[in-house]
């Protein structure tokens, strides 16, 4: 009898949670505890950006039908002030609201009204009145107003970096001096941030929508001044994160405050408009870029200076210059980042912090220089690729950007444009993508029952990335069993702490932890076997755990297949083991995922309307664990790139520090018809220096460069270079004159 189970890593496996999602059975945060009939909390939001609450009237609301409590800074209970203690990370610092009469930004919670039903809570919230002695909010409007140098940038980058010597003027053949702007943007995950919390006997149970479980528990403990042992956080399904759910937000704080106050289950779901104000957004950026190349088209000078707002009391600055520092070699490279403290809602990670908007500007500017120097922009990029890190001279574990550009151009048919229809012009664009890879400490445990069922547990989350599926595959392959025989349990703080989902590190880090746990389980099994079976492989199929002689041959012993039952009794089960990865499991060399983006667009000669005809990308990200889910994730990033290039942007009302367009009607994420053909390929090359499973990050690779390829295609089509994203038709028409 064969005990062979085909390996699944690197193939296309349909999502193991697919049936639950297409039947509406997957349960997201707000959908839990319905049997406890949770009370509903509705947020009363501030209509003023910054100031002190000077009067507050909750009496009418308290007397309204169905209302159980109106919670304000007067009765919210013990709370550590927001963003304290200073020595904690931003995801574990206090996320307090309603702890003081001070209002930090427009739309911030002033009160929480808790009632039996949503309708009652929302109506009663309209009866709460307050006054705030508003002050003029600080905002960033001029590049030079950003004078503060952040201690460091997201991803561990220095705020300032410089290498080499400025070129001599006589060596410069072509140069550009240009300024790009990108607007404030928001993750806008389809699931609004939501929490249902219950408080009993001093213990808090919380279902919320969060990317990282372990820090959420710590944040709640710090915020509510409780012990971590008294808090359980669960997040089994997350309806999209994109950075906005890395940490907990005010839905969680408020639901927990309410549950503690009433000792009952309380649910708080942010409205879409509340999501804009009570969860993070990406700050707007101004990026000044100066580039120069010599007679041989070699880059001589790369200067990238960016300015962005930083939310007061919240340490986050994104590394917009990261791409300028690593993508091309240049005699001189200089990159600086400055911020200004502003009175805006939280500014934090949005998909591919740094590179998403850095690449929009930098890869457009590279195109401008290629045009100025009279060289094909694809050839120009290939000509300037580095072999080692262009600033530090350090090695890359792998670096396949050149192959992505060369092979990608062939696959895309860079030289062959579609035939334009009358009144339209067709353009091609290209952009490079470099996204830093990291391995983050992560743990998992695996359990094996006597009948061969495998259960994996880790507090890792699946935010749509496919974590349930890839961890199932890794466990099945390592234990020589089928994916049907493995159950992966995620998103529960009682499970071993993982890296969580974020920064493109989730799959490689948590996957490697699962692999190590399965290997430890095999080692445990082998330790109870006779020496003759020391080389045997564990295979699990048909409800049996078998010991199969190694394919390599077993010099000591048997060629027969044994059953583990022969060596272990039922009382020994379930067997379990745990695995952990840390910095020791990854190389000190430079680690990057790379890719090349291509786009073909059609621009209307009269209206300036842009239609995408096709987007293509070729990517190198180590071992691709699941072709199907990985391709989907990359495609999703490319769709984001299209949105960043063409449609997305928060408009600020500068007098009130509010947003003009905080909903899906006016903040335009790409819709189905905005997108056309999106396709991609992977260069498959496991990178075991990066992680034990050989995988690198893909979650942010798809967006990095995708928008710039479209911007460059627009220029190629109509010769208008729009430097203020998004590239809307009014800006293109303005360039026609």
């Amino acid at each position: 009898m064969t005990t062979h189970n085909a390996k699944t890593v690197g193939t296309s496996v349909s999502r193991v949670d697919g049936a639950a999602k297409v039947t509406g059975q997957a349960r997201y945060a707000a959908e839990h505890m319905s049997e406890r009939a949770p009370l509903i909390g509705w947020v009363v939001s501030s209509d003023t950006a910054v100031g002190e609450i000077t009067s507050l009237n909750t009496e009418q609301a308290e007397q309204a039908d169905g209302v159980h409590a109106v919670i304000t800074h007067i009765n919210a209970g013990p709370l550590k002030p927001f963003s304290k203690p200073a020595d904690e990370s931003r995801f574990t610092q206090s996320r307090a609201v309603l702890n003081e009469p001070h209002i930090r930004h427009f739309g911030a919670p002033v009160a929480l009204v808790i009632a039996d039903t949503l309708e009652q809570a929302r109506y009663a919230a309209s009866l709460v009145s307050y006054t705030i002695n508003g002050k003029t909010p600080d905002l960033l409007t001029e590049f030079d107003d950003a004078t503060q140098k952040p201690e460091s940038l997201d991803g561990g980058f220095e705020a300032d970096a410089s290498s080499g010597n400025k070129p001599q003027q006589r060596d410069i053949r072509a140069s550009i001096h240009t300024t790009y702007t990108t607007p404030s943007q928001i993750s806008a995950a389809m699931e609004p941030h939501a929490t249902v919390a219950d408080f009993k006997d001093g213990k808090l149970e919380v279902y919320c929508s969060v990317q990282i479980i372990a820090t959420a528990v710590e944040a709640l403990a710090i915020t509510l001044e409780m012990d971590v042992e008294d808090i359980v956080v669960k997040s089994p399904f997350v309806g999209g994160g994109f950075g906005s759910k890395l940490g907990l937000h005010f839905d969680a704080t408020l639901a927990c405050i309410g549950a503690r106050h009433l000792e009952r289950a309380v649910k708080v779901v942010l409205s879409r408009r509340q999501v804009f104000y009570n969860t993070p957004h990406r700050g707007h950026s101004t990026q000044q870029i100066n580039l120069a190349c010599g007679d041989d088209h070699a880059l001589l000078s790369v200067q990238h200076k960016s300015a962005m707002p930083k939310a007061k009391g919240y340490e986050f600055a994104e590394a917009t210059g990261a791409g300028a520092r690593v993508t091309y070699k240049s005699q001189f490279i200089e990159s600086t980042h400055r911020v200004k403290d502003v009175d805006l809602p939280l500014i934090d990670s949005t998909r591919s912090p740094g590179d998403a908007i850095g690449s929009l500007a930098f890869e457009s500017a590279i195109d401008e220089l290629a045009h100025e120097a009279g060289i094909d922009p694809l050839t120009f990029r290939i000509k300037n690729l580095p072999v080692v890190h262009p600033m530090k001279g350090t090695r890359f574990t792998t670096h396949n950007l050149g192959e992505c550009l060369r092979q990608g151009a062939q696959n895309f048919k860079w030289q062959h444009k579609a035939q334009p229809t009358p009144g339209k012009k067709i353009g091609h664009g290209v952009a490079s993508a470099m996204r830093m890879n990291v391995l983050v400490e992560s743990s998992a445990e695996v359990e094996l029952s006597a009948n061969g069922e495998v259960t994996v547990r880790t507090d890792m989350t699946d935010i749509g990335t496919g974590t349930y599926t890839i961890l199932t595959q890794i466990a099945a392959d390592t234990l020589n069993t089928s994916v049907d025989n493995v159950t992966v349990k995620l998103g529960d703080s009682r499970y071993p702490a993982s890296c969580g989902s974020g920064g493109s590190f989730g799959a490689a880090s948590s996957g490697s932890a699962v692999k190590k746990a399965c290997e430890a389980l095999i080692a445990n099994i082998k330790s109870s076997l006779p020496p003759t079976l020391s080389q045997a492989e564990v295979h699990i199929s048909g409800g049996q755990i078998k010991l199969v002689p190694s394919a390599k041959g077993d010099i000591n012993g048997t060629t027969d297949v044994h059953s583990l039952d022969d060596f272990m009794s039922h009382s020994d089960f379930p067997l379990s083991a745990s695995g952990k990865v840390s910095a020791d499991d990854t190389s000190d060399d430079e680690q990057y995922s790379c890719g090349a983006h291509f786009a073909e667009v059609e621009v209307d000669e009269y209206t300036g309307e842009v239609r995408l005809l096709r987007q293509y990308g070729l990517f190198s990200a180590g071992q691709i664990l699941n072709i199907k889910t990985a391709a989907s994730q990359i495609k999703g990033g490319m769709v984001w790139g299209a949105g960043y290039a063409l449609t997305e942007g928060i408009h600020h009302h500068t007098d009130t520090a509010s947003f003009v367009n905080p909903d899906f009607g006016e903040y335009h994420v790409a819709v189905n018809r905005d997108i056309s053909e999106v396709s991609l390929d992977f260069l498959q090359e496991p990178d075991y220096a990066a992680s034990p499973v050989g995988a690198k990050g893909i979650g942010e690779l798809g967006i990095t460069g995708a928008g710039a390829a479209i911007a460059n295609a627009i220029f190629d089509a109509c010769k208008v270079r729009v430097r203020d994203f998004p590239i809307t038709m009014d800006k293109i028409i303005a360039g026609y004159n």
Partner: protein
Amino acid sequence: MATLNLNGKDVSLPDDPRTTLLDFLHQHLSLFGTKKGCDHGQCGACTVIADGERINACLVFAFQLEDAEVTTIEGIGNGADEALHPLQQAFIERDAFQCGYCTSGQICSGISLLRELSNEDPSAVTYSRSRNSTASLKEDISERMSGNLCRCGAYPNIVDAITDVIALEKQ
């Protein structure tokens, strides 16, 4: 007592006239398959089928649907793994979702779209086609699915899944 027919069963309408169909499903029936993404008819996550037409459940009060027949995701297929609707199966095979939050609405919308196509209901694409445009079936599907946002960006896969089912139905 006023009722609506939900997935084949009569259910009593809520007393509170402010209760939308979407909140009725959640608060009164604990049916959470239909999602709330915006509550303003801007995202399509709450798409259900009422008397054969796709609607946003957040934009209609429950009482407005007295005696109507409403189908939610729980009424599509058999609600169980073994008896999926062909479009549900195609969504899995084409990986037409990631986080899954918009998926119920996409599927209800897609099923209505199949009916609208067979009825030859007009769209912006069929209109432009009547004026000599060469717009493809895929573009028409994209156009008709543009009321359903997907922030994970599964649009190309959603179009592929619907295209697969159209091909299947033609067989």
